[in-house]
């Protein structure tokens, strides 16, 4: 007897149909333009769940939307100013087809939003979530989760985890909620045998050998810790960066945000939180114009130090999850892989 189960591929849709009755379902869906995006699924019969390609977005936007209202305010006169929490109903949500990089990213978001102070907006969405993962048998061209050590397979952090074994999925659980799903819908699951577990291990070994990018992340982490990254690297990258914020927006672990007021009438408005990026020149600029960061020479420094130095120091692991999305989006040539490679080349 193992704690592992088999879900036949024919049973996947029927199972999702059952789960969808009690949960909002979010999964990678290929749209009519051929793009794969994590999408809220209204009708399972009208979409194509795509487990072949990497979703262009991560789960970040669902837990930490690009823009969200923190509360509303009104000030009918100078001597009155009221603040009203905005009641948002977050339905229980099942995230399906979450790859190890995106799963690791959610676990990192937990640290950011729940460790210092408990962010109420995040907490509500996270408490209501079930994560069903999918191990990666075929890492994509820009992937390097082997270097960040959270993939291509993972064994923790999910509620349920699937491994594609051709005609069937091997299913594991890590949280009690995952176990509950298996017991509740026992008719879809068969006990896994020794052969299935062996097949999973074989798939893992094969996946591990399929990475196309060589990323010497450990070496870069070491150089940062020992303060051996030359100023010329920061300068070159900072000058090249086009300040578009694309890397931060697409990154599943970039969480910097700004807060501002959105005036909706003369005497009312909403306090809004929106995604921000530490690479933007206004990010550190204070009232009056003083900026404690030399933007031209070191504008991009914070981004890489945060992920590969400060978080390593604090939590003993980098907060880059190796998903490779920034590699594909950066047109300035200042993505994290370039930084790592430049840093490591400087040595030789």
């Amino acid at each position: 007897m193992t704690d592992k189960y088999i879900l036949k591929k024919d049973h996947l849709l029927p199972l999702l149909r059952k789960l969808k009755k009690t949960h909002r379902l979010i999964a990678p869906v290929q749209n009519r333009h051929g793009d794969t995006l994590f999408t809220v699924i209204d009708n399972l019969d009208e979409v194509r769940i795509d487990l072949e390609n990497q979703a262009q977005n991560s789960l970040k936007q669902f837990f930490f939307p690009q823009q969200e209202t923190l509360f509303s305010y009104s000030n009918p006169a100078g001597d009155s100013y009221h603040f009203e929490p905005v009641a948002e109903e977050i339905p229980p949500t099942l995230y399906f087809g979450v790859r190890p990089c995106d799963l690791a990213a959610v676990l990192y978001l937990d640290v950011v939003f729940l460790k210092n102070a408990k962010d109420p907006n995040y907490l509500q969405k996270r408490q209501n979530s079930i994560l069903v993962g999918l191990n990666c048998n075929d890492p994509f061209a820009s992937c390097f989760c082997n270097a960040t050590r959270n993939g291509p397979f993972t064994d923790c952090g999910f509620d349920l985890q699937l491994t594609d074994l051709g005609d069937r999925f091997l299913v594991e659980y890590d949280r009690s909620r995952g176990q509950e799903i298996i017991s509740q819908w026992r008719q879809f699951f068969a006990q896994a045998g020794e052969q299935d577990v062996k097949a999973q291990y074989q798939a893992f070994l094969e996946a591990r050998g399929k990475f196309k990018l060589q990323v010497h992340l450990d070496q870069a982490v070491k150089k940062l810790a020992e303060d051996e990254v030359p100023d010329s690297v920061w300068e070159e990258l900072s000058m090249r960066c086009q300040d578009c914020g694309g890397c931060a927006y697409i990154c599943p672990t970039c969480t910097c945000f700004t807060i501002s007021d959105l005036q909706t009438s003369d005497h009312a408005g909403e306090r809004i939180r929106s995604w921000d990026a530490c690479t933007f020149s206004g990010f550190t600029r204070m009232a009056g114009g003083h900026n404690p960061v030399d933007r031209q020479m070191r504008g991009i420094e914070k981004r890489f130090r945060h992920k590969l130095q400060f978080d390593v120091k604090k939590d003993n692991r980098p907060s880059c999850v190796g998903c490779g999305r920034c590699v594909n989006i950066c047109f300035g040539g200042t993505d994290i892989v370039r930084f790592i490679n430049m840093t490591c080349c400087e040595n030789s």
Partner: protein
Amino acid sequence: MPSQQKDLYLPRPAEIREVIAENSQIKTFVLSFVDRQYHDKFSYAPGQFLMVSIPHCGEAPISVSSTPANGGTIHLSVRRAGKLTEAMHDMKKGDVVGLRGPYGRPFPMTDLAGRDLLFVAGGIGLAPLRSVINTCLAAGHGRRITILYGSRTPSDIAFQADLATWGQTANVSCLLTVDRAEPGWEGDVGLVTALLAQCCLAPRESKALLCGPPMMIRAVLAELAGRGFADEDIITTMERHMKCGVGICRHCHMDDKLVCKDGPVFTLEELKRLNVLELRG
């Protein structure tokens, strides 16, 4: 006191009880929370800050310039610097702002007891130190207190009522200087570092607390190092752009520290381990 997690970002209305014009650029707003019950339970420590909300202008971090013993009201001294502070300067007695906090690591008040204290401030920098000075005086600080305060011109000298009181307090010496004199000014002209030369200090028995523009801080640090002050005996409070105030949004990063949570008060010893532009010059 912060925060019921549900209210993490939710300010509470606070009424302006009085507005004191310190100079053409700085006003001190005397505030109390509209919710009396909340106000009576509210407390803070010198060096902490509040996030201030002004309608349609968002929020800004402002350090508290009063002391918890100050008759219950909260003083926020605000320099006109951007959109929010401009709007705040237009507000009058009876108007309502939003406040949340207090946030940040305060000055190490227990470490100050039993030490000579040297306060060096420039401009609005006296605001957070005022909270420390008055707290020390209220607690009957038995050792010598030296206050050095630099302003641009004599009409820029803020907190005049406090300066007058401190000047007449036993064990306290209070020296002022200005960058540019005006007719009628008979006091010192020049940098606060020149005032330091007039002071007889015992570095090993002292703590120095600084707050002011980066240029002043750098000059004073050099002078204090020359006088034999140890890095752990020099304390300052840092200013950074902030949005959340609670250690999440990361605007106020200073290497691996966040000014809102790990600061804003730091010793020089701590700052030297970080890459801080203000110290590099």
